[in-house]
């Protein structure tokens, strides 16, 4: 996988592949990806998850209209056993 320094990466331009940090790992995205397309591509559509982009919650109702940009830090979380 092509490595990009996310912190200094320029904003994606037309046709350029973007790279985000997804749960702490680099992840490549097609241009014009939204949160909704990312979730679908991960096979997580319809799952009970919550999402943060750059440390801000993005409500489920806004996933489809939230574009992703090069260097975005995305967290996808769910419920697990704990006390």
């Amino acid at each position: 996988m092509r490595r990009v320094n996310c912190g200094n990466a320029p904003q994606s331009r037309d046709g350029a592949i973007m790279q985000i940090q997804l749960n702490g790992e680099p992840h490549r995205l097609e241009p014009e990806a939204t949160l909704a397309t990312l979730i679908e591509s991960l096979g997580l559509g319809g799952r009970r998850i919550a999402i943060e982009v750059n440390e801000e919650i993005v409500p489920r109702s806004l996933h489809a209209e939230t574009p992703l940009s090069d260097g975005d830090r995305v967290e996808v979380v769910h419920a697990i056993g704990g006390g």
Partner: protein
Amino acid sequence: MSSAPHDSPLIVAGRRFASRLLVGTGKYRDFDETATAIEASGADVVTFAVRRTNLGQNPDEANLLDAIPPSRYTLLPNTAGCYTAKDAVRTCRLARELLDGHNLVKLEVLGDEKTLYPNVTETLAAAETLVNDGFDVMVYTSDDPIVAKELEKRGCCAVMPLGSLIGSGNGLLNPATLALILEHAEVPVLVDAGIGTASDAALAMEMGCDGVLMNSAIAHAKQPVLMASAMRKAIEAGREAFLAERMPRRASASPSSPFAGRINA
């Protein structure tokens, strides 16, 4: 989920719960065992953790919230694993999104991995931020009556001192400080952490605690479902004993059978 005669339900932030036993979902063999044990415990409030989703692995993987449906239980997301106020606040906001706006959370901000002892300065800061952001905060804390009061002043809806270290099963190591917290608290006080067996839970309730939260004591018993049932009874027995008000202790004996009418008199 029966209540003791004349008892009132546990009320936390305006929510009413018949059971005073709150349970976690960690450390079980599988979700079947989790669901069966929690059912046997009679608990209404069930805690869980928030973690990164494993991506690209088995999309059909079972979901904890299928075993513990939010329609049946009051879910209490925790901030376990957070060592800063900032991480704890982020985790609570993620949990609120995960549960469609449900705002009851268990705040815990830890000091180090060896003791999992609460970091009270970070806990106080997180509590203030969360309360201002509209959360109902049940807070795990040390068994320090001053800190408990400070958390209450910041608007926490329940204070949850440890009985002993998380996952240690050492019971109530300092009943005297727990008694001080109970004496001054104006919000529900629940023991959270350290319970090892049924008598520990009963003792907490006999002292007047409003409830007990536990995970390992059930999940790490050799027979978790049986222990869950034992804990349910211990909580109810302890609560009833508290309400009944125990007899005074005496230094000398006092016969239960009358002296009068003995055949050797």
